[in-house]
């Protein structure tokens, strides 16, 4: 199976969007004292998994509603999902299982963790990047 879909190299919007991610994480830590790690916020939003779910729900609500804000400014977004159902089912489980076991994902380890030079986060991010690159190589070029 070879799906070759080009996406344009967009350094400026990437840099701007990245800076907004960094700013959000920074403000969240400065104001509320919390790390903006999405996997932990998701798992912690269940009462059985954490003691204070309210602020987590609030953060997730903002995250879910964010595309509406951009629509107000006429910002067009497009994302098509061309991933097969089996990949979604297996991948979704692995993302949840791995981020819980490894205490974080692209946001918590990748930005907040590396940003404060945490050795655990640096190791985790390098490892999951390499594994993801290998998996993409296998699924796009070998299968």
């Amino acid at each position, binding site marked *: 199976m070879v799906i070759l879909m080009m*996406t344009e190299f967009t350094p400026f*919007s*990437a*840099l701007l969007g*990245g*800076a*907004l991610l*960094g700013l959000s*994480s920074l403000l*969240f*830590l400065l*104001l*509320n*004292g919390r*790390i*903006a790690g999405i996997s932990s916020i998701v798992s912690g939003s269940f009462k059985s998994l954490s003691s204070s779910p309210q*602020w987590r729900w*609030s*953060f997730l*609500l*903002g*995250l879910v509603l964010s*595309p509406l804000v*951009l629509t107000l400014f006429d910002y067009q977004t497009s994302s098509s*999902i*061309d*991933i097969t159902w089996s990949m*979604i*089912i*297996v*991948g*979704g*489980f*692995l*993302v*949840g*299982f*791995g*981020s*819980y*076991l*490894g205490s974080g*994902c*692209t*946001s918590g*380890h*990748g*930005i907040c963790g*590396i940003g404060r*030079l945490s050795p*655990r986060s640096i190791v*985790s991010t390098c*490892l*999951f990047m*390499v*594994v*993801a690159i*290998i998996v993409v*190589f296998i699924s*796009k070029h070998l299968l």
Partner: protein
Amino acid sequence: MKLIVSLLCGLLFGIGLTVSQMVNPQKVINFLDITGNWDPSLMFVMGGGLLVFALGFFFVINKRIAKKQKPVFAEQFFIPKRKLIDKNLLVGAVFFGAGWGLTGICPGPAMANVLSFEPKIFAFIGMMLMGMFVARATLKVSDAKTSVVDNDSLSSVMTATDSK
């Protein structure tokens, strides 16, 4: 006030994900596809995010912690304190990377994509939650087996007072 800050930070985070196109799985997969149609954009996303967060962390937050000041609206900084690179961290990263590579979706973009009402996004989130619960159950079983008090996880948060 804390809840309003949470809501606004969530909004800002989602806007960042959308502007940077992290919400587009194809964009993520093309970033990971270094031998194919490589799209290096996400390197800039990470660069921009790290630049802003790291500068703010070392010039604002670390100074605040050093002066034993609290966050603006909260009682303490919840910053992971763990240093040990253990098996769970490594195994977790391998599983997470495999799932991320298969789908091009990680937890943030999954949530920011909910309003697209794409069935695959809901399936992804459902499976992600299931994975989290299974991981927690697995950790509980292994904790019970060793039955040793895990000092490492007990001290996983530090307060403003015991940081330095």
